[in-house]
């Protein structure tokens, strides 16, 4: 199988990589860029553990063939915040206790960031429907709803958004 060179922006940085036609985006992120936040679980696009943002749309990284992100803007959980400089959504997930084993957490966080970018003040119903494609077997769902609301509240209080976090918008 012939590899093909693709170029894209990964968390704001221009990158290039040779990918085989069958390689999924999550495989390429893990194997070529050592990014482990998006991870394959169900392998069928049903659980959201592999959530990645491509051109401001969230996709299942296990179903998205890497070759199709050529020339795209790709954002992963690693692009949101650092250990000592967390994104407000990441901080809200900690404060609300919105995860246990942590395996599904990056997917929920990316979805929440996307939700709040689209809808800064979502209702409970809107939160639930937006996140219904992500599964958490530890079932931290009540705490996740709390975390989204907490993050929304904190983000709405920000007078000047940090421009580095809005590069893809």
């Amino acid at each position, binding site marked *: 199988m012939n590899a093909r060179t693709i170029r894209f922006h990964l968390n704001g940085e221009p990158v290039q990589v040779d990918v085989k036609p069958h390689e999924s985006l999550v495989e390429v992120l893990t194997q070529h860029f050592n990014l482990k936040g998006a991870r394959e679980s169900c392998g069928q696009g049903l659980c959201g553990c592999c959530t990645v943002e491509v051109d401001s749309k969230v996709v299942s990284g296990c179903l998205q063939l890497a070759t199709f992100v050529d020339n795209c803007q790709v954002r992963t959980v690693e692009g949101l915040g650092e250990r000592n400089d967390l994104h407000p959504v990441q901080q809200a997930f*900690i404060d609300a206790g919105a995860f246990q084993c942590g395996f599904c957490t990056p997917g929920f966080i990316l979805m929440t960031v996307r939700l709040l970018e689209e809808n800064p003040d979502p209702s409970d119903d809107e939160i639930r429907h937006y996140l219904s494609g992500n599964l958490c077997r530890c079932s931290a769902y009540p705490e996740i709803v709390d975390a989204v609301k907490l993050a929304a509240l904190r983000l709405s209080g920000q007078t000047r958004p940090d421009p580095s976090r809005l590069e893809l918008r």
Partner: protein
Amino acid sequence: MTDIASNGGNIGRPVNRLESRDKVTGRAEYVHHLQLPRMLHGKILRSNRPHARIVRVDTSTAAALDGVYRVVTIEDIRTVIPHPYYGPAFHDQPILADGKVRFSGEPVAVVLAADKHVAEQALNLINVEYEDIPAVFDEVEAMTSPVLVHDELKPAATFADLKHLKGCRDTNIALDYHLRRGDVESGFRASSRVFEHEFRVQTVMHATMEPMVSVADVVDGRVTLHTASQGPSFVRIEIARLLGWPENRVRVKVPYVGGGFGGKLYIKLEALVTALSLLVERPVKVSLTMEEQFFAITRHACTMRIKSGISEDGRILARHCEVIWNGGAYADIGPRVTQKAGFTAAGAYDIDNVAIESYAVYTNKPPAGALRGFGAPQTAWAYERHTDMIADELGMDKLEFRRKNLLSRERPQASGTLMRDAAVAEALDAVADQLNWSSPFDKGSGTIRRGRGIAVGLKGITSPTTSVAIVNLSADGSCFLSVGTVDMGQGSDTVMAQIAAEVLGLKAEDIRVIHSDTDVTPYDMGTLGSRSTFHMGTAVRLAAEDARRKIDALRVELGLDTHAGSTVPELLRTKYGMQAGNIIGTGSFIPDYRKPDSETGQSDKATPFWGVGATGAEVEIDTETGWVTVTKVVNVIDAGTALNPKLVKQQISGSAIMQLGFTLTENMVFQDGQLTNGSLADYKIPNILDMPRDWICEWVDAKQADGPFGAKGAGEFSSIALSPAIGNAVADALGIRVVDLPITPESIYVALQGMPVSSNGGQKS
């Protein structure tokens, strides 16, 4: 050592998980991501027959595929492990199918390749010729079936109480457990009414988001296993046994685990990857897909018959329980489930005459093992539905009937063990309060009907089990804590750090918890059965107290004992003349236990503590579709002292939501032994939309006298009573017979067809 008062600010504090930042940034370490140099991936060919002799396995075409390193069958495995059978209770499971397959989905061969896609592709090129033999799937049928899943029982030597089963032939019953208290027959004769019901619980599974994964790396006569395991100590012991090696040549390392729930206990993929790495002398990784997890381990389906004799004034005088557990093709830990759930199968009631029979039964289905409750949720489904069905017949209030019969303090449970530090009545009362039980309830009309239900249950804890901990203070006074407890999401790292910090006068957040690495961390029986806070927590407390004693002794040795304020850094600097040395405290804990009498199951110390859970539920049902909306759930447990309220609440909530799936949607459906819905597309686990609107999680104000700072455990107790609370609510709403799980719209609709049109009108049927 005198008891250390909890005034250090660590106990009862909602400390965030120590690894929080790693988890929200996607950087937490899981075996899922592990890559080693020269590593090969193993992909498993699984049987598509439920019971068949293997006539021939032709691997030649697969082996010839470009990129395939090797194809492995049991014959190859035998060259490195001559007796390739493993298991925690029985040595009954072959590393790969050996001459026959016992369930559809059983591993038959493995393809090894550097590229896992190549390995997967090669699976299609292996030809297996089978000769079908009759199979048995139903647990009740398997009790007497001429179809035998195994020729002979092979109990493991490690479980002394199973020794008598060695060599038993011509049976599918792997283990029979019995309990006798009083005289159940005379109890029935003295009763004014006797009720008998049969209940069934379906097969469900763990569906951990990090699918099972293990890596083995054999180098120079030592094997290192990196594995998503809840029981690294057991893995080491079992791998050492299989290889005939001393334990110090087997190293088992576990980083964070992406969910366990009992599915990653004992030994799963570890024997296979070890054998593969031995064969090819390279690191080998086997990662299951989500679909494959359905064939790895499940929760027991069961059939439970329960018969109760009731006196004129509503007291339960006698109860007979018969529980038949569908263990699938291999025993795994099923025999322990059979015993542990067996001994509480009569429920949280004070009954003078009890007889319990509990059977672990082999069938041609995927193996069943531990899943959040060790069988307690299955038996509670039966005894708490039974309780409501009796109260209905007696015309008694369901809360009142329970209160009248509930086990109170210092009364003997059916095993003879006294109820101590078990807030059964308090938990039930708290649920009743939150449901406003004494107030009128709107039961709806027309096509929307409402109902409510309560339930309460008990769980005994696996015993006797050991935990060992090491506290290591560095020369600067900073603290390492080595524990074999695996943090799979429950927050054990954090809670253990809180306990150590409290004793040592430190802050939990400043303690470094060293993850399971059996070369470094001491023995722990396993992260299971809500045992860690109590057992490992006590070992950690003892280790920290030991470190304090050593600090005190060092003060005396250095003549600084009048100078009580001298710190660890000062003491070590004085002793060694520079920043050097360590203070190491160790602690080990095994609770008091008395083996139950083999005939009667009686023991005054059958469990180190009691797990208690009570649940209340309100449901709304659309009678035209059978759709159930759970509108309110109240979960109340006894966790003893909640060392970390934030984590305790998460455990109550998470465990209950998982159980909600087992109650309403999850069901492994088999047709002729073939699983028909082995995917998250067709096997529906709860998502965020399934969360009831009104969701209350609480724990009662209680204390476990001998637990660390008054704590016990919290991981499973809200799973116990949830299913029957919902079943009771559904029955309350519709007046239908609800005896089987799951409760689906279809089952409700079918039941409603047999229901007469109700007198208040509007009921369609």
